[in-house]
């Protein structure tokens, strides 16, 4: 009986003391959080993707409350989230940022790229890059098709279709995870409304490109000469479009001998 009573009493006392300690601690160590910060955080999507340039949604919420970030700075949530946050913060959202999407600069699908070997190994582009000749395709500059970008995407917006990664423009939020992942550096963030794009990244000279791929930029420079806006430049034997200058007239696509400047 004594043992029973002492057990109950000791545990009750210890529990009570710990409880009091916690009450005391929660008062003493209370951290004042701006209530707006919690409200803003609830509006944000919570993917913690970092596309806004901050460490995550919590950091973004703190920055918005401090006025260091625009209320519509979340590229994932876009305008709807921006409006909600603007209500919380009591400001009018600045004009919406132009929607951008990722774009894979390669058109080397299975029908134009004959495999030069078979690959049995870890299903990732980084692993395939380590074998001599970079993957199974004849072209050593193009999409390897093992889907490292697919694994990196948090939004299910990029998939390997017919051997080449393809971006689902409706789902893409231009967070840039795939851009950072692609070991071939094939992915670029482009304005969603830009109509034409160069779908090749092969830096070799024309004849070599012709040998390895039926859909490659041969670096002839015709597009650069044709473009009245001066938006196309030829670097490393690949055409590149400057989207700040491109007006989408389509003259380049019309004349491109390899038909590699295409409507997206």
């Amino acid at each position, binding site marked *: 009986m004594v043992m029973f009573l*002492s*057990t109950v009493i*000791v*545990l009750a006392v*210890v*529990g009570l003391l*710990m*409880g009091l*300690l*916690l009450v005391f*601690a*929660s008062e*003493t*160590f*209370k*951290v004042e959080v701006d209530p707006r910060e919690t409200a803003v955080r609830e509006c944000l999507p919570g993917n913690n993707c970092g596309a806004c340039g901050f460490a995550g949604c919590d950091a973004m919420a703190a920055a918005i409350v401090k006025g260091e970030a625009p209320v519509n700075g979340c590229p994932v949530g876009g305008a709807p989230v921006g409006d909600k946050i603007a209500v919380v913060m009591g400001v009018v959202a600045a004009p919406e940022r132009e929607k951008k999407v990722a774009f894979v600069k390669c058109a080397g699908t299975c029908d134009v790229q004959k495999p030069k070997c078979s690959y049995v190994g*870890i*299903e*990732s582009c980084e*692993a395939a890059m380590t074998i001599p000749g970079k993957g199974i395709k004849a072209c050593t500059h193009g999409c390897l098709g093992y889907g490292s970008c697919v694994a990196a995407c948090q939004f299910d917006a990029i998939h390997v279709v017919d051997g080449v990664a393809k971006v689902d423009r409706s789902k893409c939020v231009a967070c840039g995870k795939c851009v950072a992942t692609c070991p071939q550096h094939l992915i670029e963030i482009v304005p969603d409304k830009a109509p034409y794009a160069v779908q090749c990244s092969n830096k070799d000279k024309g004849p070599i490109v012709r040998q390895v791929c039926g859909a490659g930029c041969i670096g002839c420079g015709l597009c650069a000469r044709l473009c009245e806006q001066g938006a196309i430049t030829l670097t490393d034997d690949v055409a590149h479009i400057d989207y700040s200058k491109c007006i989408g007239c389509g003259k380049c696509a019309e004349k491109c001998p390899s038909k590699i400047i295409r409507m997206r």
Partner: protein
Amino acid sequence: MTSLALVIVTTALVNNVVLSQFLGLCSFLGVSKQIKTAASLGGAVIFVITIASGVANLIYTYVLDRLGLDYLQTIVFILVIAGLVQVVEMFLKKQVPAIHKALGIYLPLITTNCAVLGVALNNVTDGFGFFESVFAGFGTAVGYTLAIVLLAGIRERIEGNDIPKPFRGAPIVLLSACLMAIAFYGFGGLSLG
């Protein structure tokens, strides 16, 4: 001083908390998918176990032992450790936000971790004093961190491998942990002291 160093080596390697005492297995298997998170959890465990073993020792020596209530050690330690971790978390949030940011999400996770309780109870069984307890706690936690980071490294490696279907998931992880345990068994052959 040598005895304290000996305590650390013994607890970290020879009697590794996970691989030879089989404590803290749930977090060992659960949070070992990536080296980064495993290392953060390890940091939090080091922090909590070191503090908890010191406090548990004080409570045992000055309260439970004095009053002849040794048989209550398990339940009292659970109560005290759980409360202590909460207080420490609040303290860190206020005073050292940087540490709280790095370890914060793991602290509630290890409040009721059996490794934390196991160290406190082992210290009593071994008759350790205050400093020995703290060092034993620290050593144990370092051993835990070592084990979980190593396992995370192995799991990152096997992630991309072509594992036979029946072995995918938990089986291959348990097999890897088992092989690690066999390797750590070799430390038992160290002649210390």
